[in-house]
C-alpha cells in the first residue's frame, strides 16, 4: 500500500492548507451573509417561540419582509433576544453554540473535506500521470472548480438559510450526478484525442442541465435578492481560490515527494 500511503500523505497536506485558506475566506466572505440570512429566517416565523420573545421587533420585520432594507432592524432584534441563538438546537438536535464553537466546527469541516477533495484530485490525477508542479496544479484546480462548484452551481445555486428548495435527497442525487457527468466529460476532452468522444463529452456536460435540477414548488422567500446574489458571488469566488490553492499545493508537495517535478511538465498536453 505504498502508493495509497503517499496519496494520503500528499492529500493531507494539500487539504489542510487549502482547507484553512478556505475557512479564512469563508469567515469574511460567506458566513456573515449566512448570519444575515438567519435573521430573515427567524423573522419569517421559522421558530414559533420568538414571537413571544420579541413581539415588537416582529412587527417591523413582517412589514419590511419584502424589501431589501430591514437588515439593520432585524439584526438589532436578534441582538435584543439572545435566547434565539440556541433556537435550532431545540428542534433539530445538537448544534454547536454560536461564536467560537460554531466557527471551530466550520474550520474542522473545511479541513476534513479539503483532504477529501484532495484525495479525489490526487487519485484521479495520478491516473493521468500526476500533477507535476504548481502550474499543472492550477489547471487541475480549475477542472475541480468546474466539476464541483460551477456545474452543480448552475442548476442549484448556492442557497442561503430560509430559501425555498426542493427535496433534499433529490437535490443531492442531482448534485452528485452532475459532478460525475461533468468530470467524465472534462476527462474525455482532456485525455482522449477523438472528435466523437469530444462530442460525447459535451453531451455529458450538458445532460444534467437538460434534465434540470429539482426545483422548489415556489420561490417565495424573505431573503432579499441582493443578499442572495452577493452570496452566490462570494461562494463561487472562494471556491475558485480553494481549488487553485489545492491544485497548486498538490503540485508542489508531490514534486518534492517524487523529485521529478520538471520531467512531468509536458504530460498534461
Amino acid at each position: 500500500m505504498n502508493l495509497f500511503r503517499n496519496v494520503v500523505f500528499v492529500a493531507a497536506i494539500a487539504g489542510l492548507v487549502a482547507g484553512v485558506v478556505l475557512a479564512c475566506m469563508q469567515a469574511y466572505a460567506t458566513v456573515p451573509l449566512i448570519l444575515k440570512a438567519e435573521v430573515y429566517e427567524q423573522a419569517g416565523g421559522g421558530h414559533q417561540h420568538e414571537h413571544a420573545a420579541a413581539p415588537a421587533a416582529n412587527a417591523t420585520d413582517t412589514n419590511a419582509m419584502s424589501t431589501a432594507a430591514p437588515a439593520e432592524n432585524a439584526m438589532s432584534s436578534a441582538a435584543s433576544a439572545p435566547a434565539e441563538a440556541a433556537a435550532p438546537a431545540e428542534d433539530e438536535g445538537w448544534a454547536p453554540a454560536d461564536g467560537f464553537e460554531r466557527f471551530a466546527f466550520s474550520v474542522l469541516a473545511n479541513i476534513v473535506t479539503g483532504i477529501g477533495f484532495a484525495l479525489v484530485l490526487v487519485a484521479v490525477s495520478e491516473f493521468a500521470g500526476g500533477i507535476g508542479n504548481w502550474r499543472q496544479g492550477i489547471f487541475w484546480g480549475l477542472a475541480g472548480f468546474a466539476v464541483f462548484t460551477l456545474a452543480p452551481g448552475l442548476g442549484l445555486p448556492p442557497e442561503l438559510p430560509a430559501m425555498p428548495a426542493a427535496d433534499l435527497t433529490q437535490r443531492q442525487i442531482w448534485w452528485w450526478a452532475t459532478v460525475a457527468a461533468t468530470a467524465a466529460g472534462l476527462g474525455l476532452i482532456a485525455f482522449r484525442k477523438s472528435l466523437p468522444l469530444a462530442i460525447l463529452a459535451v453531451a455529458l456536460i450538458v445532460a444534467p442541465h437538460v434534465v434540470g435540477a429539482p426545483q422548489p414548488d415556489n420561490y417565495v422567500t424573505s431573503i432579499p435578492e441582493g443578499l442572495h446574489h452577493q452570496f452566490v458571488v462570494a461562494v463561487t469566488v472562494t471556491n475558485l481560490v480553494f481549488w487553485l490553492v489545492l491544485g497548486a499545493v498538490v503540485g508542489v508537495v508531490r514534486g518534492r515527494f517524487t523529485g521529478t517535478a520538471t520531467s512531468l511538465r509536458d504530460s498534461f498536453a
Partner: protein
Amino acid sequence: MNTASVSLGTSVSSQSRFMQLVLSAFLGIFVIGVVGFSHIDAVHNAAHDYRHSMAFPCH
C-alpha cells in the same frame, strides 16, 4: 500509462496501482459525503455554515 517510474508509488504493479488509486478516490468521496451530505442532524448542524458556503444542497 508508462509514467510509473515518476509516479507516487514507484514499485507497484499496474493492477495494485489501479486499486490503490480507486481506494484513495473512494475514501475522499466518503469523507465529503459524511461531512457535506449526511442527513444526521448533529452532523448537519456542525457543518451547517460550511455546507452553505460550498453550495452543497442543504436543509
